[in-house]
């Protein structure tokens, strides 16, 4: 028997890894060819002690963006949407701060995170059915991080605008559109977007590491209605596999119904933009999908999802007909996914990109050349040379996010260690994997790219 179908092995591994992190619970689901295994471990809620089962629903956060992208590509298939037509052709009232972006922004920019729009607009627009309409109406003063199309910066706001586009073209709320056009035809009955759809089920509650490194229940439902298209889906891991199968089977659901054209399935995983940081874990972005393309290794597609108290990862190796889903309701998911997914991918001769690590000997580089203040709407980073490295102060400046964070996370002091004059490595927290930070220029502006976001020098 293939290790990929060995339920007992993966259950043991999941439980072992869960013990090593603060998160209370997790589900791992693996699809290899026609075999699916699903493993559950731990607690869904530390207050109620409810267990995680294979049926437990988890917020899958930004993995939702690939569903939203799929809904957009269905509109392309139906002849209702042209990815290169200005958004204004469909949303005449659309307006952002930058005039050129208002005029020329397309759905393709939004799908590929190249609009330059500040991606972390955190205003709230209520829980009503008009939330997306109000969000878009509230974009008139939304600024740019970079010029339209100039570079890549992960953009939640763009996916909300895309969601509104779907609402207008489908004549229904985004929530109704995802049910009618994806969830119902996929048979994904353990998925929903509104709390009233899911409270009747086992739902994993959010947790964060608190004092004594123990997980604590996060006392808030993190999903803002207007952010639905960017990250509002709550789903059982097996339902995420149903969605993965749609993309592995050329756009056809389990029951044989075609939901997406083969051309759109292929277009979604074609590189549309190369990431400024080659070591971010993702090399390119497609239309919705994160892509990993390296010579000599099978291609991967996938997406991650992070809220404060929930973390999810979907990774697919199309050539090997393999899909992996991990959902976790607390901290430590990255480390768990790294170990579990590396192990599973190795079984089919695939791999994850090598992680970055600090250099054995720190090179001598001109730190003054990159020191300074870099910012998005949500976060501001101040970098100061200190010896052979950069001291960095990251401050969450978006109030709604800051409110939800413990004091220790509102402001973090980190150290950037140079690998070269433009690439540095940083460890976001004790025991957390090192990540890459890249300084670069685009359109005459200087940027720091980190955490998939372009932060422009101020």
């Amino acid at each position, binding site marked *: 028997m293939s290790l990929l179908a060995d339920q007992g092995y993966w259950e043991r591994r999941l439980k072992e890894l869960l013990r090593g992190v603060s998160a209370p619970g997790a589900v791992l689901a693996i699809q290899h060819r026609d075999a699916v295994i699903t493993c559950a471990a731990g607690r869904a*809620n530390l*207050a*109620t002690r*409810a267990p995680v089962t294979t049926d437990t629903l988890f917020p899958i956060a930004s993995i939702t963006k690939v569903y939203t992208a799929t809904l957009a590509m269905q509109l392309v298939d139906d002849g209702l949407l042209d990815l290169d037509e200005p958004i204004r052709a469909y949303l005449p009232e659309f307006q952002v701060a930058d005039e050129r972006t208002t005029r020329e922004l397309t759905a393709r920019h939004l799908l590929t995170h190249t609009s330059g729009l500040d991606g972390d607009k955190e205003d709230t627009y*209520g*829980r*009503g*059915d*008009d*939330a997306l309409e109000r969000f878009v109406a509230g974009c008139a003063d939304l600024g740019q991080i970079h010029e339209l199309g100039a570079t890549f910066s992960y953009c939640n706001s763009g996916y909300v605008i895309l969601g509104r586009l779907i609402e207008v073209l489908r004549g229904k709320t985004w929530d109704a559109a995802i049910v009618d056009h994806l969830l119902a035809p996929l048979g994904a009955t353990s998925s929903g977007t*509104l*709390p*009233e759809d*899911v*409270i*009747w*089920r*086992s*739902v994993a*509650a959010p947790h964060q590491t608190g004092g004594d490194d123990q997980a604590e*229940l996060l*006392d808030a*439902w993190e*999903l803002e209605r207007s952010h639905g298209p960017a990250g509002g889906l709550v789903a059982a891991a097996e339902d995420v596999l149903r969605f993965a199968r749609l993309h592995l089977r050329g756009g056809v659901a389990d029951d044989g119904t075609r939901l997406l054209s083969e051309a759109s399935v292929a277009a979604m995983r074609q590189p549309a933009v190369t990431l400024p940081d080659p070591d971010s874990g993702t090399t390119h972005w497609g239309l919705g999908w994160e892509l990993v393309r390296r010579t000599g290794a099978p291609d991967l597609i996938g997406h991650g999802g992070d809220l404060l108290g929930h973390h999810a990862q979907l990774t697919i190796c199309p050539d090997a007909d393999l899909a992996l889903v991990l959902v976790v309701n607390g901290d430590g998911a990255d480390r768990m996914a790294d170990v579990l997914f590396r192990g599973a991918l190795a079984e089919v001769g695939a791999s994850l990109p090598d992680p970055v690590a600090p250099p054995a000997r720190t090179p001598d580089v001109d730190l003054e050349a990159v020191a300074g203040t870099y910012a998005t709407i949500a976060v501001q980073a101040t970098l100061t040379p200190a010896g052979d490295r950069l001291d960095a102060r990251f401050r969450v400046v978006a109030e709604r996010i800051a409110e939800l964070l413990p004091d220790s996370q509102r402001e973090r002091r980190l150290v950037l260690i140079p690998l070269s004059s433009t690439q540095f490595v940083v460890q976001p927290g004790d025991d957390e994997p090192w990540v890459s930070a890249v300084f670069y220029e685009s359109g005459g502006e200087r940027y720091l790219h980190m955490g998939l976001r372009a932060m422009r020098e101020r």
Partner: protein
Amino acid sequence: MTRLAALIERHRVPGAVLGVLLDGNTSITAAGMLNVESGVGATPDSLFQIGSITKVYTATLALQLADEGSLDIDVPIAAVLPELRLAEPHATARVTMRHLLTHTSGIEGDHFVDVGRGDDVLERYVRTCAELGFSHPVGATFSYCNTGYVIAGRAIEVLTGLTWDAALRARLLDPLGLTATVTLPEEVLRFRSAYGHTVEPEQPVRLAPAPLLPRSCGPAGLIWATAADVLAFARAHMDGFPALSDASRAMMRAPQVALPDPWTLGSHWGIGWILYDWDGRRVFGHDGATLGQAAFLRVVPEAGVAIVLLTNGGNAHDLYEELFRELLDELCGLRMPAALAPAVEPPAVALGELAGLYERVGVRIELADRGGRLAGRLTATGPLAELDDDPVEEVELLPVTPNVFVTRSDGEETWTPAVFYALDDGSRYLHMGGRATPRITEGSR
């Protein structure tokens, strides 16, 4: 097996939590399942929908505003809600907050509409009332009125500048430390919570077809709470609490209106509270029923006793009757009055005088003399009826006295009274299920 577990089985209640407060000590017992399909067990800390017990919370919020001087409960509510339009402008202009809180406004009480899930839901609800009429003249009698509590909730929003949910949280739940009392599904997610069920005779218990009332019902019945939190709220009303004046607290349990049917709900209504005169002792409380869940709260203030029962379906009222009768006797020697039952020797009744069509928003009642028996055909109407597989019920009404009858549904043990009476203006009414329903046409049809 606990007594509770035995009784829920007997009454086909899927799951229940019983909370008892005695001399300042709280004890909570749980039995059965929160959801018969998932099999998840009920626990003492599970949330249930407390339904209309919510109205006492809304009434408390209103009286807090009266304490602060920002609301006079005896001036027309139009002073706070000038945009309020109902079908009869003259009557509308006379309705006060006191009428709304004591169910005496006469506004058609079962106007349920789903106007979405946004924070503007009560404002939108009030706009849907423009065609809504009155089932009796303002102040003329008592008729249980959900609509009035939603309108009261909207007035609270206008006066506080908060949504009803936020006002409840900030002004009542937080000061009382009620952290396991919530109104929105996103808040329910943090807890174990009950799913409503329906029970038909000879049929297996099944999940309620729609488990959640629309958000516009909020101030009339959308609170979820644990038994301990409901008891803490009852205790605050028993002992006093800083967020409400003692005078307002006393007024809430002082008789405001006598009920035409003193058997079904209580003898009188206070402000928010139902008042019971049981065994010569004063008891206050409230019941709540939602789509598949039912809750019961009774407080005997002079004995320091409060009892709450939270259930998720089945013959919950029968369970309540049996359980509370035992407990009140045991805890404070109180004997609940015997339930009304048909007379052993039926009195002579002129059934033709009572027959006819009685109707208000939400229900149509047709009564006919069928060979000396009073036959009733009850038809649920309106949006909630669409959720009901069988909106028509045929019943027989059996006489107790010439103007008081009783009836009961299949499988139920408790008799429901039906009281025939006339208002001062001579108009004929049937009081049943807490509601006054006017006779529209006389005689058998």
